[in-house]
C-alpha cells in the first residue's frame, strides 16, 4: 500500500440501517468505505480491490462470518479483520481473535470506539510495512542483524571497517546483544570468508576440555586456520590456557601453512576486560594483544525502535514456523515491550516471543499474553544480566529473604493480571475475560471472592 493512499475499509453488514450508522461514523475520517451485505459480495470486493481492513458481522444471510475469517486469512496479502459481535457474546469475540481476527468490537459501539479500533489496526499495518521495508532496505539491517537505530548503524559501519582490516577485534557487550553474530558478520564480509569460522565459549567448559577443544588436531584453532577463531567469554579462560593462547597469538602459531593467511582471532566478553586485568583474571599482555579494536555491542534498551522491529521479525518467524495466526501486536503490548529494559537483550526478547507463540494462537499479541514481569516492568532475577547474582540456594527448609521479596503468591499474580486486563479494557469485564482467554463468569467469580475477602 502506498503511504498516501486512503486506507480502504470493507464493511460486511447485512443491515442497511447499521451500515448507514457506521458509514456516518466514518464520514469525516480518512477511510474509504465500501459496504456489502453478504459474504459472497465481500469475496468479490476483496478479489477486485486492495482492501486494508474488513469490518465483519458474524451472522450474515449466506454464512457465518467466523468461517470467512478462516477463508480470508488463508489468502496471500489478506486484509486485517475486525469482527463485530453482538452484545454479550464474549465467547464469539474470543473465538474470532483465536481464528486470527486482529480485533473485535462489540455492538452497539460509538464513533470513537470504531475509529480507535480502525486506527490501532492501521498502526499495526504500518508497523508490519515498516518492518518489511526496513528488512529490504540496505543499511537498515546488516548481515543477520535487524534494526536501524543509530547505535546499530554505528555497529554496522565498524563491522564493515573491521572486515576490511586484519586487526584483532575485542567485542564487549551484555549477554544476548549479538557478539557472535557480529564476529560472524566480520568474518563473512572479510576476505577470509572462504576459510573456516570456529566459535568456542571459553566459559562453558573446564580447562582440560577447553585445551582439547581449542588446540587438538580437530580443534577450533585448526578448523579456523586461515579464517576466524571466535573466543567468547575470554575473561573466563583459565590462567594456563591464557598462556597457551598468548603463545599461539605471539608465535605465529596462528598462521597457516606457508603462504596461507594467519587465523584472525576475535574475542568477546560480557564483562569489563580492563577490570578483569585489574582483578588479575585476565593477563595484561594477552589483553593488549587481543584488545586492538574494541567493538561495543549496544544493549537492546539503547536501541530504541529496534525493539519493535525485532519483535515483529521474531513473531512473524515463530508464528510461521508453528503455523500460528499472529499478525501483530496490540498497542498495549507494544508499549510493554518498549517499556521493559530487557536485561537479557535480544536473546530474551526472542525467548519471550517463542514461548508466547507456543502458548497462544490469535490474530494479535495482547499485553495479557506477555509474561507478568513485562506487564509490571519488574526484572526477574534469573534474566538479569546486569544485576547482582541471585541469592545462593537456601539451606533445605529455609526460605531466603530475597526469595520472599521476589516470588509472589500465585493468587496475587492472578489478581494483578485480571485487574490489569480490566483496566486495559476500560472496565469492560467481558472484553478483559476474552483477552485473558477465560469465561467472563470466572473473572466475576474471582472479583467477588476478592471483594468478600476484603482484598478488592
Amino acid at each position, binding site marked *: 500500500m502506498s503511504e498516501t493512499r486512503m486506507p480502504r475499509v470493507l464493511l460486511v453488514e*447485512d*443491515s*442497511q*440501517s*447499521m451500515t*448507514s*450508522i457506521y458509514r*456516518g*461514523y466514518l*464520514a469525516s475520517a480518512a477511510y474509504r468505505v465500501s459496504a456489502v451485505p453478504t459474504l459472497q459480495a465481500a469475496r468479490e470486493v476483496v478479489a477486485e480491490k486492495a482492501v486494508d481492513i474488513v469490518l465483519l458481522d458474524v*451472522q450474515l*444471510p449466506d454464512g457465518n462470518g467466523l468461517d470467512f475469517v478462516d477463508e480470508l486469512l488463508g489468502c496471500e496479502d489478506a486484509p486485517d479483520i475486525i469482527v463485530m459481535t*453482538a*452484545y454479550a457474546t464474549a465467547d464469539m469475540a474470543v473465538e474470532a481473535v483465536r481464528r486470527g481476527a486482529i480485533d473485535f468490537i462489540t*455492538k*452497539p459501539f*460509538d*464513533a*470513537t470506539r470504531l475509529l480507535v479500533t480502525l486506527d490501532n489496526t492501521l498502526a499495526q499495518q504500518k508497523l508490519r510495512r515498516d518492518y518489511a521495508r526496513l528488512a529490504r532496505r540496505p543499511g537498515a539491517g546488516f548481515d543477520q542483524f535487524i534494526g536501524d537505530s543509530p547505535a546499530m548503524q554505528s555497529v554496522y559501519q565498524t563491522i564493515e571497517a573491521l572486515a576490511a582490516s586484519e586487526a584483532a577485534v575485542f567485542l564487549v557487550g551484555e549477554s544476548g546483544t549479538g557478539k557472535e553474530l557480529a564476529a560472524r558478520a566480520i568474518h563473512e564480509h572479510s576476505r577470509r570468508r572462504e576459510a573456516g569460522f570456529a566459535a568456542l565459549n571459553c566459559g562453558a567448559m573446564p580447562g582440560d576440555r577447553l585445551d582439547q577443544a581449542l588446540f587438538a588436531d580437530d580443534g577450533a584453532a585448526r578448523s579456523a586456520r586461515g579464517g576466524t577463531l571466535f573466543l567468547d567469554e575470554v575473561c573466563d579462560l583459565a590462567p594456563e590456557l591464557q598462556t597457551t593462547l598468548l603463545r599461539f597469538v605471539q608465535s605465529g602459531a596462528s598462521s597457516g601453512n606457508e603462504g596461507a593467511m594467519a587465523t584472525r582471532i576475535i574475542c568477546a566478553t560480557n564483562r569489563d576486560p580492563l577490570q578483569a586485568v585489574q582483578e588479575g583474571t585476565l593477563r595484561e599482555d594477552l589483553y593488549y594483544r587481543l584488545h586492538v579494536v574494541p567493538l561495543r555491542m549496544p544493549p537492546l534498551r539503547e536501541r530504541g525502535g529496534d525493539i519493535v522491529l525485532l519483535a515483529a521479525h521474531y513473531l512473524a518467524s515463530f508464528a510461521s514456523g508453528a503455523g500460528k495466526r499472529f499478525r501483530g501486536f496490540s498497542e498495549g503490548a507494544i508499549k510493554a515491550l518498549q517499556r521493559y529494559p530487557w536485561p537479557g537483550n535480544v536473546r530474551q526478547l526472542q525467548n519471550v516471543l517463542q514461548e508466547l507463540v507456543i502458548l497462544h494462537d490469535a490474530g494479535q499479541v495482547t499485553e495479557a499474553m506477555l509474561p507478568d514481569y513485562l506487564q509490571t516492568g519488574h526484572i526477574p532475577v534469573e534474566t538479569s544480566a546486569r544485576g547482582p547474582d541471585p541469592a545462593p540456594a537456601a539451606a533445605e527448609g529455609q526460605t531466603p529473604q530475597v526469595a520472599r521479596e521476589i516470588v509472589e503468591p500465585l493468587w496475587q499474580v492472578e489478581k494483578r493480571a485480571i485487574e490489569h486486563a480490566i483496566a486495559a479494557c476500560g472496565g469492560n469485564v467481558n472484553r478483559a475475560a476474552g483477552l485473558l482467554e477465560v469465561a467472563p463468569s470466572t473473572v466475576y467469580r474471582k472479583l467477588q471472592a476478592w471483594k468478600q475477602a476484603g482484598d478488592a
Partner: protein
Amino acid sequence: MTHRLPSVHKADVCCPDQELLARLHADLGSAALGAILAQGLTESGERLDACRQALERGDTATAAREAHTLAGLQRSIGLPALGEAFAALEQQLTRGDRPAGDDLDELASALVQAHAAARDGLPR
C-alpha cells in the same frame, strides 16, 4: 410448539435510551440520524415480515437470524429495551419454540411506537 414471549410491556420497550440517542446525535448530526431512524423503521418492518414469513414456512433458523438482526438494530439506534424484546424472540426461536402470532403483532406495534418516541426525542 407455541410459546408466549415474556410480556412486551410497551411502556418499557418503547422508551428510548436518551443517553445513547444523544451520543448518536453527536456522532452523526440531526439530519443523518433522522434519516437513519426512518430507514431503521422501514428495515425493521421488513425484517419482522421476513421473520413472520419464515415462521409460516417452518424455517426457524431464518426467523432467528432476522430476530437477531432486529435486536442488534434496535440497540444500535438507541432502543435497547426493544432490542432485548427481539433478543428474547431470537432465543425462543433458537430453542426451536414458535412464538404466538400475537407476540409478533405486539412487537410490530412496539416497533412503530418506539421509533416514533426516538424521533420525538431528538434534539431540534
